[in-house]
């Protein structure tokens, strides 16, 4: 390469290729994504879009760089299947036999029908689950297959499924983050839906999480004398964290917006690209740790 134009040509071609690949093509594929009814609950549009105050909260999240310590991307290792017995049918003996044959535990006839619906096989593959479900169907029982996401993020309770592109389409600024100093927030709204908890946590993280390394965002709050009537917005602080008598801590509009935004972070709707069985349907679902 002895000549300037050749170098230019090489750089131009290489950069065009990369530009077409990672700028143009994603735009063609995803740029016009809209709300879809591709969730399992067919009548619901997803994502629902955030309320106005939450959208203001996103701006507070961006301005204060929350994303430098908190990601918004739950990862998932895979999807496993739980087999749940919903109805033992009229011939519980046959069902118990089928279960014993499948070697999923020891069952005797009458006990099969107790405490329904109950999971009889957890964390298996779809093939295994289908074989068992078919065997039970022949024996006259009804079963339900439940899809469960796996992985350490899911086990931590950070989400019910992995985060996907569809989760972000209604946001003005998308900040998936690059570092987890603290927990992931992709689904914090369903994990911690209490507005007062969120506000107290922002005001003084140590008040709700012992030894929290998160800084306090006191500049988002106002400490003032209680007027004729205590403010309805005042934080409910207890013990050593409560303000002195006659004073109250009131969130500024930014703090309220940020807390509403955090609560609006919910990505637990089942999608075709990230399927799961919503927990509301099952009474036996173990509480998240």
């Amino acid at each position: 390469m002895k000549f300037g134009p050749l170098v230019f040509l090489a750089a131009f071609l290489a950069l065009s290729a990369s530009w077409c690949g990672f700028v143009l093509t994603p735009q063609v594929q995803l740029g016009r994504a809209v709300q879809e009814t591709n969730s399992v609950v067919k009548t619901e549009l997803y994502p629902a879009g955030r309320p106005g105050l939450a959208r203001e909260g996103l701006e507070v999240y961006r301005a204060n760089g929350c994303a430098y310590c908190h990601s918004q991307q739950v990862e998932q290792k895979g999807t496993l299947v739980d087999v749940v017995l919903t109805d033992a049918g009229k011939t519980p003996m046959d069902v118990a036999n089928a279960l014993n044959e499948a070697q999923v535990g020891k069952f005797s006839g009458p006990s099969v029908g107790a405490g329904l619906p109950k999971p009889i096989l957890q964390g298996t593959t779809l093939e295994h689950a289908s074989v068992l479900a078919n065997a039970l169907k022949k024996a006259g029982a009804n079963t339900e297959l439940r899809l469960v996401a796996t992985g350490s993020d899911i086990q931590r309770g950070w989400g019910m499924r992995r985060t996907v592109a569809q989760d972000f389409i209604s946001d003005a600024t998308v900040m998936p983050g690059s570092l987890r100093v603290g927990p992931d927030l992709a689904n914090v709204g369903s994990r911690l839906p209490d507005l007062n908890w969120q506000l107290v946590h922002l005001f003084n993280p140590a008040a709700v999480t012992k030894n929290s390394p998160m800084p306090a965002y006191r500049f988002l709050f106002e400490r003032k004398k209680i007027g004729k009537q205590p403010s309805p917005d005042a934080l409910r602080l207890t013990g050593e964290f409560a303000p002195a008598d006659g004073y109250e801590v009131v969130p500024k509009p930014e703090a309220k917006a940020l807390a509403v935004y955090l609560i609006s972070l919910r990505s637990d709707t089942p999608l075709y690209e990230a399927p799961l069985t919503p927990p509301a349907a099952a009474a036996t679902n173990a509480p998240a740790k």
Partner: protein
Amino acid sequence: MNATSTTSSASESISIGEIDASCRVPLFTLFVSAAVWLVVASVFGLLASLKFHSPNFLSDCACLTYGRVHPAATNVLIYGFAMQAGLGVALWIIARLGETRVAQPWLIAAGAKLWNFGLLIGIIGILAGDSTGFENLEIPRYGVVFLFLGYLLIAFLSLVTFHNRKERALGPSQWFLLAALFWFPWIYFTANYLLLSHTPIRGVTQPIVAWWYSGNLNLVWFGLVGLAVIFYFIQKLMNRPLYSRHIALLTFWTIILFASWSGIPGSAPVPAWIPSISTVATILTVVTVLSVMVNVRGTCARGCSQTESSASGKFIAFGTMAFVVAWLMNVLGAVPGVSSVTNLTWYGVGQWQLNVFGFFGMAMFGAIYHIVPQVTGIEWPSTKSVRIHYWLAAVGIILIVLPLAIGGIIQGFNWANPKMSNVDVAKNALHFLRASTTGELFIMVGNLMLLGNLIGLAVRYCKVHFVPVCKEAIAEVKPAEAKI
């Protein structure tokens, strides 16, 4: 590929002194600003690091919270120090290799002023809460406009200088610099236009573009300019040509073909083909690292002791080693089994620091310590402080990168263990972070020494060039006054 004898009219040959003199104004503007921003970056970096010792340190002031100080530190380091120093060194190499004077030096200095003005209002904007929210692109729109115009002015005049060259045949350093000059405006315009215009792109296409930009800036731009400087100085210090032009060509092609597709993490919540391609491309950059190693080793066949003898040589040698480690860390962090541990941890932060400061920054220090005395004709006031700066910077960056890399890996394993509480994971990582604060402190003191040395040199320059002129002027005026 023998360079045919120059066909250009050999009527007037320009002396090295003339070339250097033409560089004086733009280089001094760029280097002094870079050194000032470097100190600012290390102060912000230290502030951000101290937050991990006490979370509520200065947290009651909105503009000094971690979420604002940290992006301010990274942006000042990238745009204030690294790119500005890189542009200055690139300009000098282009002029020297082309055996020609710099075109319109005052206009280049004006471009540098525009760049610095844009950066200043951009950083104030970030501290005031106007950050865009995209990593490495936090500077708000009103700052970006000035940065972009400043860059265009500097790059255009660098190209004019390149075009005026007497020696027509090109060497590896020139390919690298030419490609880099052309690369930045494209990626910077694309990213800022798509993310910050009135109708920005939506959804995850935003972070995809931001990651694409970061990959292209941190690997391609810094890689091209940093390696151009390293190749140039290795040849100069060893006093022999590069071991192989062909291998350098391989380095060039692998950077622009592979590194330009890197940057999108494996975990990204985007269609799977995007992180897959990016992972493959990142792993392929191992060829770049190997080709550089072979070429540097070949050039220094009889040992690199000659490069070690000068202060610049030490910086360049450290920068070369840091390049190898930083890029290998990047490759390793992209390997699927490893990335699931290192992704979203301090490992990535350590890798970034090593690439920007350990590789690029150290190479620039080496170049600056060599160039400034040549351009001004004045020796550094303190050669001892150059040596101390080297040790502070070298030990400092190791003290940052090593704890962050190890701490990041441990943090990755801890997050993967659902039995460990969030607070415990964060606390385990804190020990390593606190160790890295020492490194930040070392680097800050080193940066102050560079700035002090530059200021000392400027004072000497004024004494030599301006004081006699002033004295003469005064001496001439006085008799004239006396007559009246």
